[in-house]
């Protein structure tokens, strides 16, 4: 015990020393109940949360196991209060159960009457629960199953959901292990990577939940494999049309599904097929004050619902999804951080985190390209500093982010990577237009038609075009396997997930094993720099150590 790899702090954080010989063993032991919070080079920080402990209970771990694990790996005596708290927290789980009653339908049953009384008394549960059957059982409106679970978690009495899932309409789907690679070429054999298989198993065992994998680690394949496991009709919700097309292509290549079986439900097309891919946007479109496309959710007896990029789930979807609790739900994301702090709602509506792999682990296994992150600091010229100094606070970020000197820095960086496919990513259209002209590179923005986007992306993939200037439309879900350099000139303020997603654009493993480069060009001594520091936090916590260089001495390394 005195030489364990883990230090248990009384504030419920767990510090895991990575270089310790027993670190891996320990990581596996604590993973079921502790949330990985930060994963920098030497010491990873995990945190014990109520939700995490309850998820562990749901997955069949008991308090004793948790306590023993902590004691076994801890270097110092474990704070007693923490152990007591772990036991008490885990004991709260399962006092309430949700299950299907033969006559009353969905019911909430309590093994502890006082708990049920407390829950019934709470104002939050009003309207969610129906009549009382006896002093331990109460009817639940089936449509409020998700909402009720969410409320119960907030009340501190999480319900164990034993009501199960509807099977859904059967539809055979299988993985084909021979696929044509994306750029064309001979058919290649492929298998699920070990972590993908683990993720699918973890999801399937848990029934519903979120799988967190780094960008470029093959989340689509986890989706496809889950569909194959389910073997049912599936509704896939994605962020935009381009992404919908990519899903479709990928499914056709990797599974037995044919083009006819996959429908696209977007602004332009409204197909409902055994496997339907819909965009968040179309679902949240309101016509005359009502969501007109909600019927899609009930259009078929879906057996599985996949949420791509679940961290972007818009708030209305939260509400709509609440009554889909009887169906299996799979959430996919690389960065479950939301600046609106609604991570918990994602967990309670879609399900707990079922699988999470630190980016650096996947990188070490060679499935994503190693990346070199550099922050380039640009000193503004005197005149711009004066303009900045007297600008209104709300204009400062825009001023700093679009500093004209950035164009020069970007072109110098581009020059140092003559053989790479370079993406320049930014937030402000006028800045991007300038850059596009400056670099003589095509520009893709929200205004670019889907057809044009597809064309440009294809050209970029095939190497016809080696530089591309893109707005935030390319933040997510755009597969550009050969892109190896990304230059970020501006972003949406301090968004951590945006930064990570943008890095993700260049993280597909390269054919020649090249290192990917990610540059963030930042104006020194401005809010741009402060936002950059915040944006980098997620990646820094994943172990991507940013190098900071001055634009002046930017050295073609």
């Amino acid at each position, binding site marked *: 015990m005195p030489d364990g790899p883990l*230090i*248990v*702090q*009384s*504030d419920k*954080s767990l*510090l895991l*020393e990575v270089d310790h010989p027993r670190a891996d063993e320990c990581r596996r032991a604590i993973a079921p109940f502790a949330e990985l919070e*930060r994963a*920098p*080079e*030497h*010491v990873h*920080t995990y945190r014990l949360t109520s939700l995490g402990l309850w998820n562990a209970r749901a997955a069949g771990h008991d308090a004793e196991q948790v306590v023993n694990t902590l004691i076994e790996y801890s*270097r*110092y*005596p*474990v*704070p*007693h*209060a923490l152990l*007591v708290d772990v036991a008490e927290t885990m004991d709260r789980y399962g006092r309430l159960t949700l299950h299907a009653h033969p006559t009353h339908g969905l019911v909430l049953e309590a093994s502890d009457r006082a708990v049920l009384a407390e829950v019934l008394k709470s104002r939050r549960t009003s309207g969610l629960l129906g009549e009382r059957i006896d002093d331990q059982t109460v009817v639940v409106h089936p449509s409020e199953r998700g909402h009720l679970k969410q409320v119960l978690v907030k009340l501190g009495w999480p319900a164990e959901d034993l009501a199960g899932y509807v099977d859904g309409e059967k539809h055979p789907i299988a993985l084909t292990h021979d696929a044509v690679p994306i750029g064309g070429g001979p058919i290649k054999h492929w298998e699920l990577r070990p972590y993908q298989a683990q993720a699918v198993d973890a999801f399937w065992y848990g029934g519903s939940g979120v799988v967190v994998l780094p960008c470029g680690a093959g989340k689509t394949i986890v989706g496809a494999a889950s569909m194959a496991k389910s073997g049912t009709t599936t509704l896939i919700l994605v962020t935009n049309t381009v992404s919908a097309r990519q899903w479709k292509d990928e499914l056709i290549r990797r599974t037995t599904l044919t083009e006819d079986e996959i429908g696209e439900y977007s602004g332009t097309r409204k197909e409902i097929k055994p496997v339907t891919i819909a965009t968040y946007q179309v679902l949240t479109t309101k016509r005359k004050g009502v969501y007109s496309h909600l019927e899609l959710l009930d259009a078929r007896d879906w057996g599985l619902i996949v949420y791509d990029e679940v961290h972007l789930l818009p708030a209305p979807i939260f509400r709509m999804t609440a009554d889909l609790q009887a169906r299996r739900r799979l959430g996919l994301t690389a960065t479950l951080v939301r600046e609106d702090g609604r991570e918990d709602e994602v967990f309670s509506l879609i399900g707990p985190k079922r699988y999470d792999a630190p980016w650096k682990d996947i990188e070490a296994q060679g499935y994503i390209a190693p990346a070199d992150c550099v922050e380039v600091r640009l000193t503004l010229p005197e005149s711009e500093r004066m303009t900045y100094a007297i600008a209104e606070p709300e204009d400062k970020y825009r001023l700093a982010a679009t500093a004209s000197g950035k164009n020069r820095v970007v072109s110098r960086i581009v020059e140092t990577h003559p053989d790479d496919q370079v993406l320049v990513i930014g937030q402000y259209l006028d800045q991007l237009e300038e850059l596009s002209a400056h670099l003589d590179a095509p520009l893709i923005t929200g205004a670019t038609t889907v057809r044009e986007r597809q064309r440009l992306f294809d050209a970029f993939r095939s190497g016809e075009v080696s530089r591309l200037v893109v707005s935030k439309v390319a933040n997510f879900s755009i597969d550009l396997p050969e892109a190896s350099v990304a230059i970020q000139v501006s972003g949406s303020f301090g968004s951590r997930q945006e930064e990570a997603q943008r890095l993700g654009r260049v993280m597909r493993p390269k054919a020649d094993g090249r290192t990917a480069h990610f540059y963030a060009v930042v104006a020194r*001594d401005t809010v741009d720099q402060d936002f950059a520091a915040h944006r980098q*936090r997620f990646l*820094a*916590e994943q*172990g*991507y*150590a*940013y*190098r*900071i260089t001055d634009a002046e001495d930017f050295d073609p390394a």
Partner: protein
Amino acid sequence: MAERCARQDTPARRAAPVGPVGRGATGRARVRTTSSGGRARSIVRMSTFPEAVRALTDDALVAVLRARPDLAYPSPSTLRSLAARAASRTSLDRALARLDTPTLQVLGALVTLSRSGRAPGGTPSDDAGRPPLPTVTADDVAAAVGATTPDDAAAVDAVLARATAQALVWAPAPGAVAPAPGLDEVLDPVAPTPLPERWSPVPPAPVDPRPLPTAVVDAEAAGAAVEAVRLVDTLVRAWQDAPPPVLRSGGLGVRDVHRTARLLEVDDQVAATVIELAAGAGLVDDDGEDPPSYVLTTRADAWDEAGTAERWGMLATAWAGTRRTPWLAGTRDEKGALRPPLGTGLSRGWVPRLRTQILTALATLGPIGVRPADVCADLAWRSPRAVPPESAVTGLLAEAALLGVTGAGALATTGRTMLDLLDPDGASTSSPGGDAEAVLAATLTTILPEPVDDLLLQGDLTGVVPGRPSHELVRLIEDAAEVESRGAATTVRFTPASVTRALDAGTTADDLLATLSRVSRTPVPQALDYLVRDTARRHASLRVGAAGSYVRAADPAVLTGLAEDPRLAGLGLIRLAPTVLAAAVPAAAVQSALRGRGLAAALEGPDGQPLGRLAHPARIERGGARLLRAAYHAPGPASDAERLALVGQLRIADGGGRRSPFASTAGGTAGVSGPALARAALAAAGRTGPPSGPTPSAGAGTITPGDALALLRDAVRDGGHVWLHLVDGRGQPLRRRVRPLRLDAGRLRALDTQRGSELTVAVHRIAGVDPDDDPGD
């Protein structure tokens, strides 16, 4: 008074003799010996309680007096009166309050048996010499309380022996036992004491005990101890920079408590405890100034130099003996006023005794996670007739946990050591700075984890100390990083603000990086290196300073040489920019000095426009110059003749060369003795005196109001005496020798020691003050 007694007789306490107790039914030997007397002594058959008391050996009597100190104060005239007092209601009540459950059960049974007619007892109304049979025996009592096993019977025996040693039980005949007269009434004045339902020779076991490994208990105690030291240290540093004011009624104001709590990142209750700890250890104290504030004492110097364990020793020793009740801070007293921390309303005489009882209870309960309710139950068993309030028990337990005397609810090694240093009434056996501190510090050292010298630096600008940080690391972390999590390990984050703090403290970027790379096993991450250098680059780019005035010129050449000119050195000129000099003195002084050098300097206003002639001579900056202003207005000797007279008075006052204790501080005029100063201001006092009344008697002397107040303040602080010249309501002058207690709100509260009364005087009625050098009181 009882407490004083208790303290006085402690040295011999542990030598309590075993009293004479017999067990008739078994027919075993009747005769016991006193253990401490050394002489075997047979028990004489006697029939009354006073007789029994009189027959006690000297040692036994000493034991009685020791166990019941109230019997000796005031000293009784005869043994008979001692016996009467021992049977008095008040004394018995006191004695019973200290008895534990089995003793009370035994006494209750004895009283009941004696009442039921089986024994005549020894009530004072009994005639001497009346045959005392049949009697109650120890076995009867044992049977009555339900003590059936031989062990239980032995326990009853022991209880009776202890009760006898306290003169609560006596032996009317060999083998017989009887309650002291009056005991029946005290035990239960109305109904006969019912026999106990359950014989409870041992304290109740805690409900649902959670056994704890000693290592866990000690580790948590050590963690708490380190944290307590850190909290006090943070407080001391903060108060050093900004001493909080003392409330008019004493104590620390609510806002300052909140502020301290925010600073320490704890709630108000814990903050109050920490504040009381710091004050208890003598690190901060009321400075007695006007207005008074809490400032650091010289003991804080020792604190600064001490290591963690020594510091903890200081805190623990102070806590072990304190009578303060920080848990009452923030509650309201009978008048509805808030009790502030450090206020007088928080002292309770019973605290030390209760603390010892609690620690004893914890020691008995052993290494289990103890809840306050368990301790209360234990204490209720120990003294059922004087159960301490639960809030006090909870409060003391919280303090013990905070200080690291307990860990996870159980008594830690540190707590055991502390208990060994305490006597039963809670008086600490050592004074501050003495052995106790060293012993406690040494004990803490044995349970503190080894300090760690490593700081693991990471690319996300965080760092982790995987253990208890060493002294050097603590300093580094405090100076240059924000702590994110404390406990067995410490995690920190470096931010521009934290690095700025380190740079403010005088570190340079290179020093800081050198230190970081020395404590880190891995190279300093590039991001951190850049952060430090970048912060240093921006550090101090804006600078703020104080200046009295400035000199500016359109032509830099005019200013050249002025700052270096020795004749202008008194102006404190600094060149800020080619055309601007800053001066330390007011504008008028600079102007005249420059003119003296032949430079035509013009004054300008805040708007940069020339002012022309300055209407007033140099004005003194508002605030911070009160003394100077007083000096300007103080009437001073105008001619040499007057100066000579003053010198003469000084000589007379100095008399035998004895200097007044106030001399050095009175009125801020160092080197002039108090009375002399007072007389020097004679004329002024005459002016302030009432127009109708006669001037104070010649030679008594009075002084200017400011000096009078200064003298009074000194006297309040030093607890000294002064002669007060007053003017009463009818305009008559009075002269009183008093000890000033408090000076505020325009009133002086003082103790007239000769008359033994306290008087409150409005300051404007004080015509003068003379220091009184006579220490006799």
